[in-house]
Each structure stands twice: as C-alpha cells, then as structure tokens.
C-alpha cells in the first residue's frame, strides 16, 4: 500500500528543444509527487510530453537540442536537475531504474545478458563478479525466465520480445531502486505477452514495494495497475486523480473524450464511436490559452484567453479546466 511520504517531488518542470524549425515546447511546467510504494500512471498521446518529462528527471535527453529551463525534482533531499553528470550516474540505474519502450533496441546486441545485468550492480553496489552473477540469476528467475542460470551467457537476439522486456525489467530492478520509471514497457508487445508482463509488475510491486511511474497511451493498461493517474496533453498535466476517481468521474473534457472514444470489449456495442475532433496543437509556442480549447466541446470564452492551472477540486482530484462538468449536465 502506498504511504503518504513522497519519494519524488517534481515541481514546474519545463523542457524545450531547439530545432531547425524553431523552438518546440515539449514540457511546459509539470508538477507531481510520487509517494512511497505508489504506482502513478501517466497517460497521454504521442507528443503530449510524457516521455520527455521523465527523461528530464534523469537528464537523459541530449542537451542541446534539449534545454531544461525551469523546475526542480527533489529526490532524497537533492535536486536531480542540479546534479552534475557524475552525481547523476549514481542515481541512474541505481536508486532510480528505467525501463524503455522498445526491448529490441535498448539492450546492447554484442554483450551477454549476464554482463548487462551485472553491470549496474558492479557499478552501483560494488559487487564482485561472482556475487553479481549470482544475483543476476536470481533476478532473471524473479521476472520469470526459465533456466535463468544457463541463460546468462546468451545474447539478446536469443530472446523473444517478451523475454527481452523481462530482462530489461530485471536490469532496472538490479539495484533495488526506490523509483522505477517504465516508459511504455508493453507497447511493443502482443496482448498475451503484455498480460504476462503486467502480471510480473503487479507481483514485484507487492514483493519489493518500490514506487513506479508508468507511462502509457493505453487507458486500459493503466486502469488495472495504477493507484493514481495523471493525464497529459500538449506538455501539461490536465487532470490528475486516484484511479477510481479518474475513470469513474473524469472532469477534464479531454479525459472524458478519450474514455468515450474507446470501444468496449463487453456490454453494449456503441452504434458509432464518439470522437474528439481536430488534432493536437503544434508545440512551437507555449499556448497562452487552454491548449485543448480548439478541440473542446465545452470551450468557454475564458478558455481562449487564459490557460487554466491545475487545481485541486476535491478528493485529490486535480483538474486544469475552466469548465465545470456538473454545471451543465448534458454530456
């Protein structure tokens, strides 16, 4: 169960990219907290800034073109944004683990799985080769790879996609991280394999009690595992709430729209899918108005003038919107 102490406090993070076509404002002031043992889901479409936000925390972006121009990220009493490369190395892969989307490209094809698993433990925990190898085998076993010991000498190409993603999880878990950041870890996988991975994550959470940030575009995946969900749009968090509250009582028109566009697997089949008209805005300017206003079915005059801040309405349900869903009950 998540406790109330935050392990990670992110405040007002803003990242932009200097490109040939001018500035791209990927993240425009994102704040959130991650409590101990909690699973925070971050949902958004491509270009919403969800991955860039998390990469910013560990400065995993190439700088330049990226520039982190505002914000703090407090982790164990230090600000991650201010750390230099040496200090960051101690955190990356150690106290904060990272799982990337594509298990095909994030493992080194010319090194054995055993080497890649042992590397963070030798680096961060100062383990001897033998200790690290033994622990590697335990880790592979933990993520459900059969005959773990004998597979340490295999190379990534000898594993299937789902197996590689398990290896990635094992690497991320190697140093007992307090925070695990998982960036679309199941997107490249088939549904039956995705179900296997989700099952492992659920089990590991109970066993190891780490806090997890889970980035995804799939509202279905997050419904089953998250404690709390943040919805991102155009570089802003537009809504954040405990999972039941968000799905049961979505307040932002974007979240409501997203949930309505999804076809159901059970129950009545909709005659026609509801859709959100238009497209996500370009990120070349920081919007002065609400970024969703041009697509919003409820846009008010105010929405086109001022960008709403993320405000706590009640029950820890935060929304960045001028419109009140309860005022006109006709959606």
């Amino acid at each position, binding site marked *: 169960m998540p406790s109330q102490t935050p392990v990670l406090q992110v405040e007002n993070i803003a990242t932009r990219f200097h490109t040939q076509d001018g500035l791209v404002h990927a993240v425009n002031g994102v704040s959130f907290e991650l409590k101990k043992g909690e699973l925070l889901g971050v949902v958004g479409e491509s270009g919403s800034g969800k991955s860039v936000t998390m990469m910013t925390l560990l400065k995993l972006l190439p700088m330049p073109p990226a520039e982190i121009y505002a914000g703090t990220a407090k982790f164990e009493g230090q600000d991650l944004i201010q750390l230099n490369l040496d200090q960051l190395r101690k955190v990356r892969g150690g106290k904060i683990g990272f799982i990337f989307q594509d298990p095909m490209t994030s493992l080194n094809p010319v090194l054995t799985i055993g080497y890649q698993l042992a590397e963070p433990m030798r680096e961060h925990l100062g383990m001897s080769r033998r200790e690290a190898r033994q622990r590697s085998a335990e880790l592979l076993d933990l993520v459900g790879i059969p005959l773990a010991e004998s597979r340490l000498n295999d190379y990534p190409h000898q594993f299937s996609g789902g197996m590689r993603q398990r290896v990635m999880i094992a690497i991320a878990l190697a140093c007992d991280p307090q925070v695990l950041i998982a960036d679309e870890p199941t997107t490249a996988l088939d549904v039956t394999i995705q179900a296997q991975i989700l099952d492992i994550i659920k089990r590991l959470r109970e066993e190891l009690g780490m806090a997890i940030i889970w980035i995804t575009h799939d509202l279905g995946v997050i419904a089953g595992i998250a404690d709390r969900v943040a919805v991102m749009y155009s570089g802003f968090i537009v809504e954040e709430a405990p999972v039941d509250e968000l799905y049961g009582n979505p307040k932002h028109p974007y979240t409501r729209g997203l949930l309505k566009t999804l*076809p159901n697997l059970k129950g009545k089949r909709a005659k026609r899918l509801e859709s959100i008209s238009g497209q996500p805005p370009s990120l070349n300017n920081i919007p002065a108005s609400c970024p969703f206003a041009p697509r919003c079915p409820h846009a008010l005059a105010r929405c086109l003038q001022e960008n709403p801040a993320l405000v706590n309405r009640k029950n820890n349900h935060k929304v960045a919107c001028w419109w009140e869903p309860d005022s006109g009950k006709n959606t």
Partner: protein
Amino acid sequence: MTLKERNVLLEVKELVKHFPITRGVFRREVGSVKAVDGISFDIHDRETLGLVGESGCGKSTAGRVILQLLPATSGNVIFKGRDLTSITKEELRKQRPQMQMIFQDPQDSLNPRMTVGSIVGEPLMEHQSLKTKERHERVEQLLNSVGLNPKFTNRYPHEFSGGQRQRIGIARALALSPDLIICDEPIAALDVSIQAQVINLLEDLQEEYGLTYLFISHDLSMIRHIADRVAVMYLGRIVELASSQSLYKTPLHPYTQALLSAVPIHDPKQERKRNRTILEGDVPSPSNPPSGCHFSTRCPKAEAKCFKEPPGWREVSKGHQVACHIV
C-alpha cells in the same frame, strides 16, 4: 442480420502461403515459413469481416495473398465467381479496380515526392481514361468524401498529420469505386483520439458506397466495434470464426478465450475483479510449428490428442465455427 441472404463476394479456400528459407550459394531450400497454412472463409457483400491475431500469425500475409500482391502457394481465392489464383495477369489487372487496400503506416505507403492530387489520381490514370479536368474533379470529390479540404491537392504527404495521411490512403483506395477493401491495421499507427475519427469515416463510407471490408487488426475492442463477423488467427490458421456478438459473448477456442482475457479494460473496478487466463511462453516459430494443433504448446487445456492430430473445422452452433478437439 440478413447476411445469409447476401451474395458471397469473396471466397477463400484452403489458402496457403509458404515462404521458402534458402541456404548457400545455390539457394537450396532448407525449410519454409508457413505464414498462412490453409485458411478458408467467405465474405458476403457489404459485410465487414474482422481478422484478428497477434503479430506473426499471418494475418497481413493473408490479406496480401487474397489481393494477389503475393502469389499463393496453393488454394483458391474466388472473387465474384472468378478464381484469382488461376487467371492471367492481364485479366487480374482488370479485376484490380474492384479490390483495394488500405495500409497500416500512412507514412510509408504514400510516395513523399508525389502531391496528394497525383497520389489519389494515379489509380484513375492507370485504369480509367478520364480527361484531365474530369480527373481533377474526381480527385477533389474523393478528398471531400474523406473529410479533407479539396484545395490540398497540390500539397505533399509530409504536410499532413498521421490521421490526415490515413485519409489520403483511404481516398486512393476509393478512387476506382471498389467493392472490396482490405484494411490492414489502418488505425494501429494512429493516436487514440484520431483512431475513432478514422473508424467512423470507414463506417460512413461503407454505408455510402456499399463497401465490403476485410478488417485486419490486433485490436480486439476495435474489431468488436466494426466487424460483423470475426475470424481469429493463430500461427497461420484460423482457430475460430463467428459473428462478432457470439465470439465476444461465448468464445469457444482456448486461444480466443485467453486473448480476450488479456485485453485490458478501461475500467479499474472491472479490471480488479477480472480473472485472467495468462498464457505461458511465446508464439512458436512459423517455420517450425508444433505438430497437431498449433496452439497445443501454450494451451492450458491441451490433451494428448491435441499434440498429434490437427483439429478439424466444425460448426458448433449456427455460424460459429471452431477448430479445437476439446470444444
């Protein structure tokens, strides 16, 4: 449903596609990837048949072989009473306007050096003898019908977003007023909020022009929404075929059951209560599929028989067919 009364537009019989694996200088054949391993189904006029399966199950290859974009190894594809696998190239070319395809990736399936007008107009140039002005009018009309501004004819694909590009691909497929369109994962590359737009468009067009779709996808919830009947593929074979209603309500094949239970539902309360069947292991390689039932190695209910004999194709209830020893 009045599907039974409608004519059969496309009949696929025991279709097989094997890709040879070769070795050495003389390209000696050492084996084959059995991408499609004997599939049969009918598509009725104005129907949407969903073809679902995981990556590598052969669903896209099936689509391509049906359109004769790849030659079949054996089997028949009968379109409007003519067997496409045995007619001459010239005859096949004359059939082409009636069957079109929409591809998965709108980025790769549009030539970046052609304008939208020439992309959509190309099939018209190939197959019809219209005057330039008539062709331009037709292109504008097509762009209009897929919800794009007809003024965009002189723009290039990179100037459009993913959803818009997919609309261009749809306009191109519609250009020759086809009867059958094979949609190969048309929404897989699009964002959630755009997917619904494209699906609605495809449904409107079907209504308006009386189109028949073979809708290939891995997205089970979307297939449920769009398809009248659904065929589930696993490792080159169809394991279950039924009306959408019956398949989602009472899935019979253990694979369909597992697949449905693996799809996440966007409702945390339901998710917590769900009892998942989690399949073990991975899909075996199609170059060396298990003997007997292809699913036997991962099937939670497999019996001795399943490992030896491939299951026959049976109709369990009206219109609900399954290939499984246990059902």
